[in-house]
């Protein structure tokens, strides 16, 4: 296809190519996020060629390839993706798509003020998924920045209309917690990464397409728990600035620009004034569900 609209976390993203040489082919994880219509929040124009960065573009952030084997994280010196900037106005994300042993340099040019972005893919196949990993997450990340929303490492469930978010770094039990609730009939919004948005004075959390055929889901947000394993179930409410910095620590952030940092701190502070936050130590069994419900 030459164009399609995605609805991810309520953001309508139009992907468009006016070139005839290739077809846009979203991967299967995006299929259920495709929506009809022409209206969109951001337009991404796809171009089938390499992009030469302007000479005055300054590299402001570089993410290494990170391998995690047996819980040991290894930061390789190889660059995975990087961000370039011109005068804090125009940004470029550069990464490489690897497909069938073919490496293709990819550049996304965007601005936090503009809703029309450009994506250059060096060597496209006849059918190309323009939003391959890691660009999909990066694009969504900057949409959260523009909209003062929050992207967070967390699992989230909806149980009888209430939305519970369990946040923590890798190994703290996000997936374990999601599975416990799933076994009791809760709807799992996602088990690893969520976008939190304030819509009409109410907070919601959304999944993003990560796995094949991911269905777009969301839930009102009732409570945030910062989780860790414990010998017994225990809730410790946290308030004020302490709550803000604990939640901030689990947010996904590329903190290379003051205005982005300020927006993120602002968003999390506002959320923590509306949504209760607590540390939660839990045993990995179904007793945690009643424990949480009894302590609301």
């Amino acid at each position: 296809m030459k164009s399609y609209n995605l609805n991810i976390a309520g953001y309508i993203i139009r992907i468009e190519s006016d070139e005839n040489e290739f077809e846009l082919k979203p991967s299967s994880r995006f299929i259920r996020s495709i929506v009809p219509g022409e209206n969109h929040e951001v337009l991404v124009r796809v171009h089938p060629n390499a992009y030469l960065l302007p000479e005055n573009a300054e590299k402001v952030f570089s993410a290494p390839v990170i391998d995690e084997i047996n819980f040991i994280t290894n930061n390789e010196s190889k660059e995975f993706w990087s961000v370039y900037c011109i005068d804090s106005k125009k940004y470029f994300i550069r990464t490489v798509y690897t497909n069938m042993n073919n490496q293709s340099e990819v550049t996304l040019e965007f601005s936090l003020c503009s809703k029309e972005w450009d994506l250059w893919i060096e060597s496209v196949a006849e059918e190309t998924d323009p939003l391959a990993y890691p660009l999909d997450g990066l694009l969504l990340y900057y949409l959260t920045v523009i909209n003062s929303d929050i992207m967070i490492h967390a699992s989230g469930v909806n149980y009888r209309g209430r939305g519970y978010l369990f946040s923590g770094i890798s190994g703290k039990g996000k997936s374990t917690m999601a599975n416990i609730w799933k076994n009791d009939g809760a709807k799992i919004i996602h088990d690893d990464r969520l976008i939190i948005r304030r819509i009409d004075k109410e907070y919601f959390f959304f999944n993003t397409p990560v796995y094949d055929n991911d269905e777009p889901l969301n839930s009102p947000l009732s409570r945030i728990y910062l989780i860790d394993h414990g010998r017994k179930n225990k809730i410790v409410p946290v308030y004020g600035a302490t709550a803000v910095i604990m939640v901030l620590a689990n947010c996904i952030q590329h903190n290379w620009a003051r205005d982005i940092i300020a927006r993120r701190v602002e968003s999390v502070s506002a959320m923590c004034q509306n949504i209760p936050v607590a540390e939660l130590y839990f045993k990995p069994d179904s007793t945690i569900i009643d424990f949480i419900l009894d302590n609301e």
Partner: protein
Amino acid sequence: MEILKQIPSHSLSVVSRRTGDEYILVPVTENIADMDSIFTLNETGAFIWETIDGRKTVEEIIHIVVNEFEIDDATATKDVIDFLSSMKKFLIITVQPLPSDNSSGTKNEKL
């Protein structure tokens, strides 16, 4: 104490945000926020932070703290200087002497 004549300013390398009676301070070094070193200021720290404006001397800040919290001079002096020393150590404030003090050799004095 020559320290009393110095003028503290908020560093340009910190993002600050008031939340309730407290403050959140996020240092930004080499364009990267250090999320492992986020600071929170309690009500007293928040008051001193808001009093720092790049114009008032340390002595003036102490005087304002004495009036606000109704504590004695010695306690306020120790609390304010300890606070400013910590903030300077973490590059959250910068300190400069009064212009007229440049010739008196206080320029390099550290908090």
